[in-house]
């Protein structure tokens, strides 16, 4: 069961209407290494992971939904005052004719989200390595998003999210070590 809390994990502020940046941020909304992928990846893997790691996958998966809400808030705030002309100039006219100002789970290039982005191998080490890789890819994506804007308010929120990827990666690496120790020093590679 999940309970909703009516607040963001971290404040999201933007200093201007910027539909171009909103388009780029969709990469972390419905992209391969985005927050939707992350949440669904971890919450799906936890049913077949050893007991010692179920809590971690549950908690990080849940935090990813808070991050998804932050990205949605950024996209919403960056586009809510945009005119159709501004959306067109930002390359969002195909999005506009299909969705108006609604959000949609797609990447920065408009490719719809697919479950093919996420893996569930059933092998705990394979799954955790996938998770570590996903966090590192998301961290890199956040850095490149930060590089794409001069909006310091938006950068602040993106930097928070970038740092969370670092922590998640670290915790997943620790989980790998916990499982290795549990399996009696068995070598996996």
């Amino acid at each position, binding site marked *: 069961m999940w309970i909703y809390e009516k607040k*963001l994990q971290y404040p999201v502020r933007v200093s201007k209407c910027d539909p171009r940046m909103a388009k780029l941020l969709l990469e972390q909304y419905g992209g391969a290494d985005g927050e939707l992928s992350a949440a669904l990846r971890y919450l799906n893997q936890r049913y077949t992971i050893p007991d010692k790691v179920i809590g971690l996958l549950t*908690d*990080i998966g849940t935090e990813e939904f808070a991050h998804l809400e932050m990205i949605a808030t950024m996209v919403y705030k960056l586009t809510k005052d945009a005119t159709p002309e501004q959306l067109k100039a930002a390359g969002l006219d195909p999005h506009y004719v299909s969705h108006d100002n609604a959000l949609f789970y797609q990447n920065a290039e408009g490719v719809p989200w697919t479950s093919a982005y996420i893996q569930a191998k059933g092998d705990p080490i394979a799954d955790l390595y996938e998770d570590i890789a996903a966090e590192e890819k998301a961290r890199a994506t956040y850095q490149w998003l930060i590089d794409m804007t001069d909006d310091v308010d938006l950068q602040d929120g993106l930097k928070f999210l970038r740092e969370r990827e670092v922590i998640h990666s670290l915790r997943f690496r620790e989980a790998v070590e916990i499982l290795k120790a549990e399996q009696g020093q068995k070598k996996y590679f």
Partner: protein
Amino acid sequence: MEHVQAGKVDERFYELLQRLQEADFALVELNLYLDTHPNDEAAIAQYNHLVQQRWMLAQEFEKAYGPLMNFGHSFVRCPWNWNDTPWPWQV
């Protein structure tokens, strides 16, 4: 684009919200840390201390600005104020 009624959002709203977000951030951090370091007594003591602090902050926020959580985890007023704006992306 519909207009968002920012209702009773004032300076104190942002101040209390930030204090709550700060406490919750520490709790999320400690939670994930404890998932992989379950025997760290100091971290567990810090976690439990923050649980209490966080509960008091949430009470203060909810008394002024309405329920933070649904499904029976917060007290509500009449008329039903869970559905009141602002939602998180509106502030």
